[in-house]
């Protein structure tokens, strides 16, 4: 199929080792998180299957010529829109949002794959607009490019993934050379604007009969803001945050020991094999385990940055930065959520949370990076 020895030599072994460590780590923790529950127990086996499929996707991505992808940009972009649109019309809903598509025995989340596709498309798009990113006006087409799929995702509604899209967009714009201050102002301004809007909305609800419209459902709003004061609704929306912090907090320095977490095994911790899996790490393996995991992710990101710097062409460079932005944002927001400093948005921990679509997407993305790495310039960063 491919020239084995030459290829293997060209692979980034550090990155592969880190990915392997993260996945093994994750399987151990998922085992711990699911072993008491008869239903969830199957998730461990399924996750192993997802890893295998993900590795297949990775190998596939390593073997394609990534430069070809740029040429198929338009087709990919449209395919992406179709997939996302399909979710809205034929998707299964979970927790009030439609995120799943079922094809035969398979059930997948197009919004996960959409992340990788948009990275590839946006990289090609930016590559074609080099030097035309100086002013705000120049950025408008970029916003429109990302905006179309973003609206479909918001329609599901999947706030978490739309935030990931924004992170990818800003990360890649920054890498492509848009003015840092302009980007900073846009991000900061946007955050300030949204915060003010939410605050004003709540203020109006509490103090007047005037209803300030906001494009979010009540449950989304509450989940977004409850992290600021989880005890206000400690048996409602705040429950997840509090139980997660209790789990992490009681872990202490060395943790309560693998399979020994009372929060995990007493089932106090909600959705503990997906969104809140990091809390299991914190509880059972303590500060040491949690920081070790963060360290692994940091090494991963560092290796990805190296690949970006050494990429043969701008397209490769931009794809790499897109993947880095995606992974970094996932880690920051997920860990931030479990430790109670960021809102609950339902963003999984890459290659760590249980879930097939996410695992496959992340491994495929890293496969793409390995492919970029194999064609790198032979100069070290």
């Amino acid at each position, binding site marked *: 199929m491919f020239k084995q020895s030459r290829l293997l030599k060209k692979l980034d072994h550090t990155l592969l080792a880190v990915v392997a460590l993260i996945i093994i780590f994750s399987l151990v923790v998922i085992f711990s998180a699911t072993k008491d529950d008869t239903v969830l127990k199957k998730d461990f086996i399924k996750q192993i299957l997802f890893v295998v499929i993900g590795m297949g996707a990775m190998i596939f991505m390593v073997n394609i010529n990534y430069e070809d992808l740029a040429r198929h940009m338009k087709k990919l972009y449209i395919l992406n829109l179709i997939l996302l649109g399909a979710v809205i019309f034929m998707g299964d809903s979970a927790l009030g949002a439609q995120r799943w598509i079922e094809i035969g025995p398979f059930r997948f989340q197009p919004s996960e794959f959409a992340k990788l596709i948009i990275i590839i498309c946006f990289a090609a798009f930016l590559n074609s607009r080099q030097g035309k990113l100086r002013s705000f006006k120049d950025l408008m087409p970029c916003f429109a490019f990302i905006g179309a799929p973003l609206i479909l995702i918001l329609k599901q509604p999947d706030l978490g993934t739309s935030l990931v899209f924004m992170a990818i967009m800003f990360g890649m714009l920054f*890498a492509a050379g848009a003015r840092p201050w302009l980007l900073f102002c846009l991000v900061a301004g946007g955050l300030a604007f949204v915060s003010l809007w939410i605050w004003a909305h709540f203020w109006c609800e509490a103090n007047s009969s005037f209803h300030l419209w906001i494009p979010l459902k009540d449950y989304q709003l509450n989940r977004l803001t409850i992290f600021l004061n989880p005890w206000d609704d400690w*048996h409602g929306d705040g429950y997840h945050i509090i139980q997660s912090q209790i789990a992490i*907090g009681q872990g202490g320095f060395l943790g309560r020991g693998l399979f020994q977490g*009372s929060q995990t095994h*007493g089932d106090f911790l909600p959705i503990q094999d997906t969104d809140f899996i990091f809390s299991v790490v*914190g509880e059972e393996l303590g500060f040491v385990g949690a920081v070790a995991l963060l360290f692994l992710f940091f090494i991963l990101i560092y290796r990805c940055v190296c690949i970006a710097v050494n990429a043969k062409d701008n397209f490769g460079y931009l794809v790499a930065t897109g993947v880095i932005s995606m992974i970094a944002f996932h880690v*920051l927001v997920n860990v931030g959520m479990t430790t109670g400093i960021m809102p609950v948005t339902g963003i999984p921990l890459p290659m760590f949370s249980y879930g097939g679509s996410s695992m496959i997407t992340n491994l495929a993305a890293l496969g793409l990076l390995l492919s970029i790495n194999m064609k790198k310039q032979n100069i070290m*960063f």
Partner: protein
Amino acid sequence: MERNFIERKMRTYLIIVSIFFSILVFRLAYLQLLQNDKFSTLARENRIRLVTITAPRGEVFDRNGVKLVGNQPVYTVSLVNPGRKNIDDVVEKLAAILGEDPGEIQQKIDQQKRSYEPVKIATMIPLDIVTRIEEQRMELPGVEIYVEPLREYPNGNLLTHVMGYVRQINEEQLAANKDKGYKMGDPYGQTGLENTYEQYLRGQDGGRQMEVDSLARPVRDLGIKEPVPGNNLLLTIDYKVQKVAEEALARASQQAIKEGYGEARAGAAVALDVHSGQVLALASYPSYDPVKLAGVLSQKDYNDLFNSPLKPMLNRALLPYAPGSTFKMIVALAALESGLVKAGDTISDPGYFFLGRTFMDWKPGGHGQVDLIRALKVSCDTYFYQVGLKIGIDHIAGMARQFGLDKITGIELPGEDAGVVPDRDTKIEQRLYYLDEKSLAKVKEINQRYNDLLSRTTDENERKSLLSKKSDELREIEWELDWHDYDTIISSIGQGDNHYSALQLANYIAAIANGGTLYKPYIVQKVVDFNGRIIKENKPVVLGQVNVSPQNLAIVRQGMYEVTQPPDGTAYGFFTGFPPVAAKTGTAEVDDHEPHALFVCYAPYDNPDIAIASVLEYAGHGGTIAGPVAEDMLAAHLGLPVPGEPQKNQP
């Protein structure tokens, strides 16, 4: 793009990521290293469940060991870990099963401050509801059924007013006893001995510590602390006498109603041991069911108990009534002790006494020539009008006070009322309510001024002149502020402001019977712990010795004895086949109602051991209605067939 540009961009990128990662690490360090203790505690509260094992309250026995109050196991429904997410759902389902309002259950949950302790939702759950909850167990996570000891009354309502009732501690009681380890939902004695002896009766709750999961399913037992039962009370009450007293009151009420006294629906009776003050029986009618008060109270039950005009919760043995002629022994003793009247002095009774207006004797035409003993025997009002007027109210009130009639007896029951011994001062007190502010201030000033002057003088004549001047001044404000002869006259037959409880009357009769020693009545002999060790023992307490010569006492006792003797003692006809009994009837006039029926007695006359007082509201003549109550009680005490009881073994 240039390589330099890319490297610069990526360096910045890495720095930004590093900053964010550092924030995460600091956050982790804060949670796991600095706040570790706090979160460990919270985690422990999550998973360690302390299930209280309620200690049984102490049991209560009569003087012969008959169990009066015990405990029985009942089912209670509790909700554990109410912080669960789907709690509203569970509350709704549970409310539907229990037939309660979900809001009330939610309120109970909200009141519980410690979230890791179960919240008691309902007690005394019938078995069919227990079964329904068990059946729907899967849909009711956190709903637990426990077995708890609850008060059981083997004799129904017997002794209810003495024992009082037990109910969940209320917020005020919780606040007042916060150092004593009470918590929401604990049983608490609300009235009666249950209240007075709460600290002895309550046991020490035990507990079972369990490790549970988020659905409160036990994972592991961590240990058990056995509860310590409360201490038992051994009462002075004689079950037989008490039972007969309560039944006789009910019979008396029915009898009076049958005779046309429609309002005769309440009464009281007290029996005391004359040599110790031990209460042998203390009954109040009507009674109530303490079991109803232990659980959820329906609106109807609440109204019946608390808003009924019959006031079944009221302990009428402690409620002052006008004593009527049962007061005459006080006047007789005061007369003899004053030296102004000799036992043999006679008066002629034409059936009335005239002083400004006519004071009627109860017997039209009068009793003819009457001395003291005969006056007691036939309850001659005219005799006591005249004798009372002759000796004056101060002698009478002084004697009444010697018998403790102006004070509460100090029995171990809450809600005792002291009653009124009428004299110049109490008359002013009674009338103060009707005065305007200006007059009130004047009265106070006069009182103070004369009290000062009176305390400085020792001369008897000057005292008299001061008192007469004071009277004049008071009379100027209002005529009825001053004490008048007619006040003395009506007070002498136990009317006017005279008001004493059946307990006070029984105690005063006991002092007459035992030769003048006034004991403090008491109900609890011993407090015994569950190992049989005596925790507290109550001994007779002497409140005072009545300053009356034995001869004078003997004269009055003889008068009381004559009451039960033929041919015309007012209680003649009772106590057939009994040892000799000394008694006195009383028929106390009440404004706008039929008179109260009263009866006091002690027995045996020559060697007394029991004193009894009974009263029936608005029941007419004392002898006919209140007499049989005392007669039945005495029979029960002496082991004789109870005359009032329906004949058994009839073919």
